[in-house]
């Protein structure tokens, strides 16, 4: 009788455990089904939950109120003491600060697109490693004019992604390096169109058949975007027995180092091949043109007039 009772207890425990397995699988499948059927609803519910967390984060990092500023100022002051001490040690005075500010000013001017289209400056409040997917979170949202589908830039013309979701005060950017993100690119060097795939971690992979010369340093351009330079090929993986060779592309600045980005004011629209060709032509021209000050630049017209005038000025009659 005792043995029977013990066997019954073990069996009942086993049945209960099996039931739990089935329940876990059922709940997972149910969750996946809900995710596939009503993703928009879930997204809006999560946006409501995430909004106060983001608001608190923005308040703590960027607010001008005294409480968060106290903590920021404290850490900023400690940082400044460290910088000043090192500056004193190097006897460099304020030169470093001025240099940093000038560089930051130039960076911000470039980000805002001081030449060409208007853009919205945004700070990055979440990046890969801090967020569960390969996305960036910005501190600007729909109330600042950010729209879904707008391109996101670092530096003056490097496109890194597209706005995929906007709330009133935040925006979520899907990076073109996100796994599975496919884009058409043009490689300046071999001068070919090909497809690039995001592989995560700020890396883009372009695949071309063997026989096409792919070199490190070749510039990769997104012809669907005006001024859409992405970066240059930093590594080429070519195995002679494989039909394809791969180039790995990354922007100059690593994703972890991005503090500011600029967002285009208009969403991207699909472009035809002819339009892409025209954009590409403009990019190819503009990429190799550097704004050189007039007094430094010596071109045919300038050099002729300079040479003529200098010859006239220095002409010595024997």
């Amino acid at each position, binding site marked *: 009788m005792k043995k029977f009772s013990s066997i019954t207890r073990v069996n009942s425990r086993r049945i209960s*455990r099996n039931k*739990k*397995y089935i329940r*876990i*699988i059922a*709940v*997972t499948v149910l*969750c*996946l089904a*809900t*995710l596939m059927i009503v*993703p928009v609803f*879930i*997204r809006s*519910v*999560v*946006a409501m*939950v*995430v909004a106060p*967390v*983001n608001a608190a*984060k923005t308040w703590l990092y960027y607010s001008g109120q005294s409480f968060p500023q106290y903590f920021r100022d404290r850490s900023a002051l400690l940082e400044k003491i460290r910088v000043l001490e090192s500056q004193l040690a190097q006897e460099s005075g304020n030169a470093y600060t001025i240099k940093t500010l000038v560089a930051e000013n130039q960076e911000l001017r470039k980000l805002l697109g001081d030449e060409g289209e208007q853009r919205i400056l945004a700070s990055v409040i*979440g990046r890969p*490693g*801090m*967020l*569960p*997917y*390969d*996305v960036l979170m910005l501190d600007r949202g729909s109330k600042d004019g950010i729209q879904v589908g707008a391109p996101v830039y670092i530096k003056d013309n490097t496109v890194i992604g597209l706005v*995929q*979701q906007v709330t009133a005060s935040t925006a*979520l950017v*899907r990076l073109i390096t*996100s*796994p*599975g993100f496919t884009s058409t690119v043009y490689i300046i060097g071999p001068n070919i169109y090909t497809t690039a795939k995001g592989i995560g971690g700020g890396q883009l992979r372009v695949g071309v058949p063997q026989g096409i010369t792919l070199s490190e340093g070749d510039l990769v351009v997104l012809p669907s975007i005006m001024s859409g330079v992405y970066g240059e090929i930093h590594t080429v993986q070519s195995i002679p027995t494989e039909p394809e060779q791969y180039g790995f592309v990354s922007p100059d600045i690593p994703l972890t180092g991005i503090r500011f980005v600029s967002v285009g004011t208009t969403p991207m629209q699909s472009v035809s091949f002819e339009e892409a060709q025209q954009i590409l032509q403009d990019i190819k021209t503009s990429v190799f043109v550097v704004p050189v000050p007039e007094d430094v630049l010596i071109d045919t017209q300038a050099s002729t007039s300079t040479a003529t005038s200098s010859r006239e000025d220095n002409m010595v009659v024997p």
Partner: protein
Amino acid sequence: MFVRASFFLLLVIFASTGPVPLFLLAVGIYTVLYEGYEILLLAVGIDAYFGYNMGYSYTLGFGMLLLVVHFLRPKLFL
């Protein structure tokens, strides 16, 4: 119950602010301690909001984690 709710709230905050390794570690501890289905809801939220049609990795991963923890639980003497 209060501790469990607070822990779950902490998971929600970690999910939206990161860092991801800390979040995953916290999810692991939470699952071992409570073995609750609510982490699947959290995973659905992450996949819908941050994933945006990029995959269902968190839902599948957390489902697997629940199964593994449930399988290992008697062996862990918990």
